[in-house]
Structure formats: C-alpha cells, structure tokens
C-alpha cells in the first residue's frame, strides 16, 4: 500500500468512525432526553417517542447517503473510479 493509499484509507476510516459515532450519539441523546421531550407532543405523539421512532431512522438514512457520497469523493480524489 503506497502513501496515497494509506492517506485514503485513513480518511475512509475516519469517515466511517465519524459516521457511526454520529449515528450512535443521536440514538444515545434521544435515549437520555426522551423523558423530558415526551412532555411535549408532535404529530399527536410524545415528542421524544416521535423523534426516536420516526426521526432517528430518517436521520440514519440521511447519514448513510451522506456517508456514501463523501466516501465516493474520497475515492475519486485518490484516483479510483470504483464509484
């Protein structure tokens, strides 16, 4: 593995780590904040529940697509046409 490859892999690993850490942080934050959030309602549901049951999966979808786009940019910037 040459230096360019090593740099690309470091960026890829950082991106994967940041992506999963962000997704997990969202889930943990909602777990912690659910009780106080549930005092309000949103779309007829307790807010904390609505954010966990509807918002979190949708946020993860956005995170997955952002990750795929960003990783594609990293690969292209290091001259791989794998995407």
């Amino acid at each position, binding site marked *: *593995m040459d230096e360019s*490859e090593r740099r690309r*892999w470091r960026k*890829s*690993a950082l991106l*994967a780590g940041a*992506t*999963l850490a962000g*997704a997990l942080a969202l*889930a943990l934050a909602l777990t912690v904040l659910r009780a106080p959030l549930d005092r309000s*309602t*949103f*779309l*007829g*549901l307790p807010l904390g*529940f*609505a954010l*966990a*049951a*509807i918002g*979190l*999966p*949708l946020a*993860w*979808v956005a*995170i*997955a*697509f952002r*990750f*795929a786009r960003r*990783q*594609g940019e990293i*690969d292209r910037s290091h001259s*791989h*046409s*794998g*995407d």
Partner: protein
Amino acid sequence: MAPSEQGAGRHVGRVLALFSAAFALVVLVVAILGQMGLPDRAIIALVVALVGLALVVVGFSGRTLAEDEFFLGGRAIPVRFNGLGSAVSSLSLPGIAGLTGAWYDGADGALAATLGYAGGFLLLTVLVAPYFQKSGAATLAEFLGLRFGGRAIRATAAVLTLLFALPPLAGTMAATAGLAAAALSLAPATAAVAVAAMVLASSLFGGMRAVVLVAGAEAVVLLFGLFIPGAAISVREYGIPLPQFAYGYALAATGAEASEAMAGHLLPLHGIGGASLFALGATFALATASLPSLVARSAVTFTAGGARLAGAWTLAVAAAILLTAPALAAFARYAIWRDLVDADADSLPSWVFAYGRQGLVRICGFDPSNIDAFRAACAATIGPGGALRAGDIGLSPDAIVPAFADITDLPVVMSALIAAGVLAAGLAGATALAFTAATSLGHDLYGGVLAPKALPGRRIILTRLALAAIVTGAAWSAGRFGTAALDFGLIVPALSASAFAPILFLAIWWRRLNRAGAIAGLASGLGITAYYVAATMFRGSPPAGFPGDVSPAAAAVYGVRLGLLVTAGVSLATGAPGAAAERIVDFLRRPGRESRPVPPPPAQSTTESARHA
C-alpha cells in the same frame, strides 16, 4: 457511473416500471370488476394469483447457465433495485407483519427492533458492503475463506450459514403458506406446495440473478400493499396522505384500556423489556449487518461504491417500511376500539368470525365462530346483551396486517393488495434464505471445500439440487409442523450475530487479525451465546455469572463482546498474518477494479511460517 451500469440500470428500471404499471392496472381492473359484482373472495384470489404468475415469469426470465450470473447476479444489478429487493428480503414477514403485530401488542421491543433493523442496515453500509463487493465472493463463507485462507473456516461458516437459514426458512414458508391458503382458499398442504413452487421458480433457474430480479418485483407488490391501504386510512380519517406522520392522532384517540393479549409467532417480542431492550436492538443490528443472505446481496452491484450506495438505498426502503408498521398497528387498534369496545356481543362485524375460525380472534376468551361458547362466556362476564370491554377482545398480532383492510373497513380490493403484499414479503424472505442455504452446500461445501477444481456447471447443478432438496424439506416441515419453527426465529439472529459479526467486521477493519483469532472468536462467540440461550430456555432462568438479565433473543451482546475480545487476544498471541493475508486486506480496501490476489496458504502467520520453515 460506468456506461454498462447506466444501460443495465435503464433496462431494469424499465422492467420495474412496466411491472408496477401492470400491477396497478390489474388492481384497477379487478376493483372495477368488484364494483360490477365480482365476489370478494374472487377479487382477492385473482389479484394474488396474477401476482404469483407474474413473479414466476420474472423468475424464469432471469434464468442463466453462467456461473457469474448464477452466484453473483452477473455483478450487474443497479443499486436502487438492489436496495429495494434487499430490504424486503431481509425484513421478510417477521420484519413487516411481525413488527406491525408487535407495535399493536404494545411491546416495548417493537421500537428496539425497529432501530435494530435500521442500525443494522447502516452498519452494513459503512462497515461491510463495499469491502464484501470488492472481494468478489458470492457468500459470507467464501469471503472468510478468502480473507483467512484454508478450507476449515469456509467449511465452518458454510455449515453455520446452512443451520441458521433452515429454521427461519421452514417457519417463513409455513407462515406464507398459511397466508396463501387463506387468500386462495387452498388446503394447507396444497398451499405449502404452491409456496415451494414459487420459491423454486424464483431461484432454481436463475440463481442470484433471478432471486434479485424477483425480489425487486416483490418489493413493488409489498410497497403497494402497505402504503396504499395505510394512506387510504390516513387520508380518510386525518386528511394526511402519509400514514407515518398521522398515526399519533389515532393513538391519541384510542382508549388506554388494554385488550386481551394473544401470542404472536412472527416476531414474538411480548414480555421483552427493561435491560433487554438495548441488548435486543444491538442484537438485531449486529445480526442484520452480518446476515449471510443480506451480505451476499452486496456482491451483485458493479462496484464497491455501488454496494455502499445500495446499502443506503436498502436502509431507505427499510425505513419506509419500518415507519409504516406502527401506523398500521395504530390505525387497527383505533378501529377495534371504535367498532368493538362498547359494542353488543351479539352484533359483531363479520371479520371477527372469519379470523376467529383461524384462531386469530378471541372474544370473551373464546373463538367467536363458536357462537354458543363465546356468547355464554360473554354473558357470564359482561351480562346478556352487555357491552364488550377492551379486555374481552383478543386479536393475534400476526393477524394485524392480513386483516388490516377488514378491521379498518376498507374496500375488498385493499384486502387483495395487502394479501399480495404480505405473500410477496414471505416469498422474498423464503427465497433469500433458501438460496443462501443452497449456496452453502453447492458453492461453499462442494465447490469450495470438497471439490475446488469442479467445473462451474457442476457447482451450479449441485446448488440447484441442494435448492430443490432444501425447499422440498422446508415445505414438508411447513405441512407437518406449521409455524413451530418460527419459535426459534428470535434465537437465530442472536446466534448468527455472535458467530459472524466479530470476525466479519475485524476481517475488514483490523489487518492484524489472523486465522487462529478468527476461528477462536467464532467458536467462543457462538459458544457463549448458545450456552446462555440453552441454559435460559431449558432451566427457565439465565445462568450465573452473566451481567444483566437479558432475553435469549438479545443474547448476542454476550457472544459478540466475547467474540471480539477472544478474536483480538488470540490474534495478538499467535503472530502477525503473512504477506498473502496483508495483500488480501489491501486489496479489499482499495476501491478500484483489479484482479483478486491469491488467498493466504494454510500456514498463514509469520510464527506459523517460521515454525514450518
């Protein structure tokens, strides 16, 4: 995007658009025929039979004799299409009808399972899919064999894949046959044969190519079957076309009194709570990310980047389904509360009796089709002619989706849409499991371990024979034991995740991992979870020495933790992998197209090499 990818994408897109339009037209024509007097049962049977016929045609159109197409779909499946099929196949009946039932049942585990499934698809996208695609492997066992060299780990993984696929396959086929029998008025044995024939038609002639093509079509049928009835209720009751954002109003309008609890088989989460919830979500996530039938779908795209994008599309489609499940459950609960609670026990709607005959509804503790018994029971509890209370009404969670149109008083064509959709989901799941089990035998154990130099044609023939035998056996099991195999449905993900997740993730992300560590990690992770599950199930309480008190369904938290530790510890203690293994890791991590290097020889680590020298 490469030109060939664009061409294939356009072709598959056209086929999918044509299938969707034809399906919509059939539903429209049948609805008009219904208005002209076609009987209700004929409407449902016509839609289901036509969908079944169309799926057979799609499956047959994917026939191939080429090994690359049979095991890898020709690596020419567009990413969105792959995402559609992968989501529906991996969620299958438990993740769709079972999850809706769990929401109806009010199980705390429903949210944990929802987030577990979604998190699993995200993990797959980030940690596994592109690297698996790059490997060129057709199965998880082949991937592990490539990464670690030698035949032992490939054989072990293939046997475990087979064992983990068989119980859910038998259970899914039994549940699908039950739905087909109800929709088409067939005898159970005939329905089991029909389902087996459908599974074989979707896989036998075209292998992975046909499996993926049919799964895409099945996904379209399922999405029609879930979204249109859900949207119809949402618009009718709340003026909001998206049921996922309207069900809160249904929940708010429903009385809080609990109905009689009935056991569900598709996703039996009842009673799982407390400390088990986080563990359940983690188990579902790890099991989904390392599910052999799902991981293998990563291989069918053009490029590693395409596999990553297909993973994101899988998550998107799955999220749409997962978000619809609580909506359907809430609408059904509201309709039952509105129509049955406080109703006269002598004037119940006809669907109560129809589903009561199938054992899916109980009124005052009795099957309502047994009129004398249930009336006597109701007279004893609420008085003659008295009003039913919520606690007098029991509905199996498994019935919520199939009975949704009846419960919510939608036109019968909606029942037909739902019946076709849930059958499609069951068939998609069963086909994926059957093909995964067959490739374990034909591609891995025969073609990879026993006869690596066998001609490609022979590997395909062996896989086809295995497929026919496995599906026939599963159909026999469905006829003989019914859905009993689904009782193991929640344990299999825990065992599978414990065996595969640690070594699959580390095989890609930790280059220091060697074969000894992988074998030790697999054995210890699976062993500890199997011990915990067996001890808890047979003794009735968890064994001593385990932190927490989690359900066996969530026991992967023990296996995966130990598996990671043992994998790392043994790898560090037994020397670095050799140069061949390093080349494989570098190859997996480079996204461009290139030839696959030779797998490491049996004596892999430098320590081992030195010892041999």
